[in-house]
């Protein structure tokens, strides 16, 4: 076995491009799935019964199946029903649908963690439903659910590797390609491990900082 880092020489821009693509898919996918998750959780907690049942089926179906299978069906099956997405948009939409189901459950748990008495008190004081959610429930539940949110954001970062099956040139796709071309499997594998580890460490550090900030705001 050899260990030769020169296989990466001359591939700098290619790797950087892959890394940026991973970041782009991950950040936009995460933003969309957070929005979707919040909307679904509102429907689950406050919506009419029929809506809640429909949303519950969405959450269970998506959480119960692997992302790979979902993405495959979305991308290769979509054209048969007239939905032909390009690779990157398909990847981002797929991530949003997948992450949305997990975020919905996290947000729902957060809503349920706020004592009902607070909501009743606010309603008695004449606050509207929107004000209660925005001013009373949401800020408090963020403290409770932030660790779970950060954890899920980390999981999504690693799920982006699956976008390679629909030809999105993200980090794994690019680096593995270098491995196949140069036969330097060990080097490329380690580079990948390091790349994702770094991403995860930075994310969890940001999460910790955010946790402290949110909590401090509440103490004051």
């Amino acid at each position, binding site marked *: *076995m050899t260990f030769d880092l020169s296989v990466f020489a001359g591939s700098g821009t290619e790797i950087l491009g892959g890394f940026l693509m991973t970041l782009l898919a991950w950040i936009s996918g995460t933003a969309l799935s957070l929005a979707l998750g919040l909307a679904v959780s509102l429907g689950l907690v406050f919506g009419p019964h029929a809506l809640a049942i429909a949303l519950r089926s969405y959450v*269970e*179906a998506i*959480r*119960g*199946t*692997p*992302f*790979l*299978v*979902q993405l*495959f*069906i979305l991308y*290769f*099956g979509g054209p*048969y029903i007239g939905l032909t997405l390009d690779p990157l948009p398909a990847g981002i939409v797929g991530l949003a649908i997948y992450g949305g189901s997990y975020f919905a459950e996290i947000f729902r748990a957060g809503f349920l963690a706020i004592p009902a008495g607070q909501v009743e008190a606010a309603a008695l004081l004449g606050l509207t439903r929107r004000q209660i959610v925005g001013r009373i429930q949401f800020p408090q539940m963020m403290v409770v659910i932030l660790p779970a949110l950060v954890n899920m954001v*980390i*999981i999504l970062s*690693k799920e982006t*590797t699956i976008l390679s099956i629909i030809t999105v040139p993200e980090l794994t796709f690019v680096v593995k390609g270098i491995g196949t071309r140069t036969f330097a*499997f*060990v080097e490329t*594998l380690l580079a*990948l*491990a390091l790349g*994702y*580890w770094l991403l*995860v*460490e930075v994310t969890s550090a940001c999460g910790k900082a955010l946790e402290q900030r949110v909590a401090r705001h509440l103490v004051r």
Partner: protein
Amino acid sequence: MSAIKVVIHSFPLLLQAAMTTFVLSLVATAIGLVIAALVCALGLSKRRWLARAGAVYVSFFRGVPLLVQLLLIYYFLPFIGIDVPSLVAAVVGLSLCTAAYLAEILRGGLASIPPGQREAGEMLGLAKSQIWRRLLLPQAVRSMLPAIVSEVTLLLKASSLISVIGVAELTRTGQNIAASTYQPLEIYATVGAIYLALNLLLAAGGGMMERRFGLARR
């Protein structure tokens, strides 16, 4: 072949592979819980280097993709003279990885147990190991049962990665069939449905255990 024919034709094979997926995930969870308890105990140790070791374990196994961990176990251990058969490597890889997540869940569960209980145990003259085994861990596992079940469902899906070291689990078997019938959509939809059924089964099992533990608490 028509879509339905392909599905019916391949169903027995897929079910067999689903058993592999299911059994390996459960075995890995059982072993993972034991490792997680150790890692969690390390992390709470008063000796700083032990606590540090626990933190490094969690950081590494959560931060590095499972795919890479599996390849390291299967391909690079032989170079130092440890040849691991693929099934063993799969169970070891899944256990080590899920243990990192379970350790964090257990830590959260332990934090929710009032410190008075440990002190009471010490006063009653229980040994440290007894306090852990009899007092703290059972309670942590109970209060964290929903989180543990949800980790098992994640592991069940992540276990599709063990195909990279030659274990024919559900996803890989589906891909193999798709590659010889050239009808991937039908096969992927079936594979998805089987995963969903397995996870619903797990959720039902988890619900039953929760109710049982709830009764025991009374």
